[in-house]
């Protein structure tokens, strides 16, 4: 599994960043990044107001 960020949908609002229990997401100006600490819990997928995040099976 991995977290897929749809950069075309992302509004860079940070709703996922603050919701992430592992502090794995980072917003640097207009770039959303996920690091290796992500445990694929899916909370950010639900938190995203515009459906820009997906968990995808390997």
């Amino acid at each position, binding site marked *: 599994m991995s977290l897929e960020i749809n950069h075309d949908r992302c*509004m860079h609002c940070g709703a996922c960043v603050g*919701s992430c229990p592992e502090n794995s997401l980072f*917003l*640097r100006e207009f770039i959303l990044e996920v690091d290796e600490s992500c445990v694929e819990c899916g909370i950010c997928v639900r938190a995203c107001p*515009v459906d820009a995040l997906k968990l995808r099976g390997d």
Partner: protein
Amino acid sequence: MDPDEGDIVECDVLVVGGGPLGNTAARFAAKNCSGRVLVIEKRQEIGSPVRCAEGISLEWLEELEIEKIDHFINKKVLGAKLYSPSGNQMTIGKEMAGDEVGAVIERDTFDKEMAVLAGREGVDFMLKTSAVDVIEEDGVIKGVKARRMGNNFEIRADLVIGADGFESQIGRWAGLYGAIPPQDIMTCFQYRMTNIDFDADYTHFFLGSDAPGGYVWIFPKSEDSANVGLGIQLSQLDGSKSPKEYLDDFIEKHDWLNQGQEVDMVSGGVSVSAPLDKVTKDGLMLVGDASRVVDPITGGGVANGIKQAKIAGEVAAEAIEENDTSEKFLQKYENRWRERLENKLWRNYLAKEKAVELDDEQFDSIIDALSDKKIDEMSTEAILKAVSEKYPNLVEDFEDML
């Protein structure tokens, strides 16, 4: 001014986050001490993009100690109208007197104004600059590791003020708190719509399953335009329908809205938490959303945050002058902001916990029961007092706080 890779930048007070609260804290710090105050902001432009519904009450604006406010106010309102799912409604505000009690502001103008006011006190800004970690030595916060325009460098400060909002990482890196539970997170989406048909003298709130655990808001920007948005409690979302889709559905079913056009999109997260036990440690204070002082019932963050940020700035200045930025000294900040805000935050948090359990039928009967009541004051307290008369069981947990 541009730091090179590996540089060390020094200041007395470092504020992380150039929002209105960061800049207000910086302003009052610079005003009251002789030290260097620096604000870093990850965006290239202060105030943009806006992440706010922009509705405020007018009473706290005097806290800002500014001469004119009209240039960032779009529309003043007489009160608020609350609607239940089947269309029952109640009005709050001084309907008869015609007094304006609230306003919808232009946040990017407001935010830039807060920066200008800070600048006048000598505050420096570094835009397009992200904090990537805190510098902590023997349990004391000494600054942050930062990145700007591709260069990594350190900013060292006697005192760091974390004003980095809902997605605050300063507080997490410093170990002051961890994750926010999903029931304490609102995820929000909003359009600015124009050419809509509504009563622009009021803010409008739609309760119930259109926005589970939250509400739909219509905040007038002019006679025929408004911020139309909603917040939904994260624990009420299962991933099958996003907040944007909830809002699209709401707009589609109302003829007075669906004929309008969308001219702006905003999204964001908001914490609706109980007050934290601690928002300071040696060398660090948190303010605003980063310290979880958003009103848990309304989701409004600016009013509480400005009050708190002003206190933070004053205590920061005192700490620099006294050369003592220990947690013990910063207890002054904790004591002062808690005295102003903590009781109300707790009460509204408990009210939020009750409100989220209500279903559409209960909202219908509550709004119906309150529809003939005259509630002059546009405040959560006034609404809760009215609720307590008809539905004492709903407020029994916090009746002593009313």
